[in-house]
């Protein structure tokens, strides 16, 4: 199964919906460069948990080796990174 960026973004927004709504934001309003961590929507462990949930939902493995934390908390790069890494699919 090849994962699209949209698939990942949908799942992320679904998981973060309560936090985003509490800030009066709707999923479609979130720009590509929105930093989930610095905006306080999620903390470091929350990001790990999110990655873990994405892996579980899509049955993929995300390669943790070259994970650059600087960029990963920004929603656009996060979704693109995950979608790219999903080419290694767990069967």
């Amino acid at each position: 199964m090849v994962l699209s960026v949209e698939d990942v973004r949908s799942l992320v927004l679904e998981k973060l919906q309560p936090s985003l709504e509490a800030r009066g934001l709707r999923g479609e309003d979130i720009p590509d460069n929105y930093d989930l961590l610095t905006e306080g929507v999620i903390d470091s462990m929350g990001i790990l948990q999110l990655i873990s949930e994405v892996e579980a939902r899509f049955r993929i493995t995300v390669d943790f080796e070259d994970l650059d934390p600087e960029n990963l908390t920004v929603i656009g790069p996060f979704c693109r990174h995950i979608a790219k890494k999903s080419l290694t699919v767990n069967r």
Partner: protein
Amino acid sequence: MGTASKSSGAKATSHGIHGGFLRSAELYAHRPALEVPGTILTYDELRSRAMSLAASLRRATPSGGSPLTAVFAHRSATAYAGVLASLLAGHGYVPLNRTFPPERTRTMLLRSGCRSLIVDAESEPQLEAVLDLSEESLLILLPERTELSSLRSRWPQHTILGASDLEPAGNFEEKPVLPDSIAYLLFTSGSTGIPKGVMVAHRNVAHFVSLMTDRYCISEHDRFSQTFDMTFDLSAFDMFVAWERGACVCCPSDKTLINPAKFIQDVKLTVWFSVPSVGVFMKRLGALKAGEFPTLRWSLFCGEPLPAEIAESWSLAAPNSVVENLYGPTELTIACCHYRWRRGKSEEECLRGVVPIGDPFPGMDVLVVDEELTEVPPGKDGELLMTGPQLTLGYWQDPEKTATAFVVPPEKKQTYYRTGDRVRRPNEAGPMCYLGRLDHQIKIRGYRVELGEVESLLRQEAGVEVAVAIGWPVTASGAGGIEAFVMGNKLEPQTILKRLKRKLPAYAVPRRIHLLSDLPLNPNGKIDRGKLAKLLADLPQF
């Protein structure tokens, strides 16, 4: 309330828990004391900053408040200098966290009675929401700021000092500290909706630090992780155990913590201390590979149950380290029991796949009791009570809650703290095992949450009489989050959640609020939490 020590309030000591830092600053002036994102501070530099802040606190703190200073800073040099400055000035520190909702921070500030605050640049924007125009006059130190005119006109009733207004470090004069004076005041979830402030004395922390530095043979070559926010008392281990022996505290940014493995390797840590959940996620994401962390000497976990498979995997990932499980509520000072993981031997001592909490620290006394607070026989289950030098002073300005939790059991003369944890009293020399809670307190990634606090706020914000919060999904170390149920269908869950977000730390906010026309009851007429859990299990997976 009584304390366990007969010599409380005896002679003042110049030491206090910051004494170790000051001694290290003499011995290791040019060694790194602190690494924060972007800066390395030597002992001499950190001491200088702390002394300058302390002298300013001494000079300008308005009278009439509590002997406490709020440190409103997060993962910055100011945060650590602020903690040391408070202690040097003879105050306990009250950590405030900008990742908490401002309303909660405001409550903590007001209840603590602090008349002085030390604030870093990143927390400053929240001052607007935290301070009030009708506030008593406060001293606010902003060591990272020089331009203060707008703040001063905004808050004319407060004394606001920036970098250029601070006293020179040389103006600081050390004064002795009483062993029973408060070192820090930490707020913890309160089941009736109001957070409780735990008063931890210098004497309590000194005992802990002395044991830990010896047990782990800490030296000036050690490099400590700093994964816990200062509002979590486990951060006191990271700071004071490191500084006692001249070691370096390595504080990562929040972003760095997303890849803990990389952090350990890049910084060449020798001491790792975190909640087990970090290990759980690292393992799930394949980051816990054998031999990954050769520099670690000690791998310590605390805050929630430690799954046996994580202890095992981590011991393989950090083959030169010893893995230990630590246990202890804030009321017993950081941690008060420990268990060493031994490959090939510990598995059979584990209960339900969870690592034992082990034995009490030297000097601490254990009692496992039934509902009447009488000791149970060996091998039986009961509530864990403990006493000793790490028994803290009680809850800030709350004699009622203190009297409920700090009790003298029948046939005993000392005060013990009721942990509310169920444990199995070992037979002979076996380790103690944790079984669960007696009440509705749960751990979410190590953070303590009283479900009662969430329920109380739910009732308030939703305007309902009955609300139930349960931990869900249940994990080996507690719960992943909270799900809430309220009775009534004319409510707007999102509106209620928004209101809760303003009052609770993020981890304690329910992920969803379910509206039910009826809450299921068990034969005793009490809410059937099991049925609610089943309702959740039957929902389509999210």
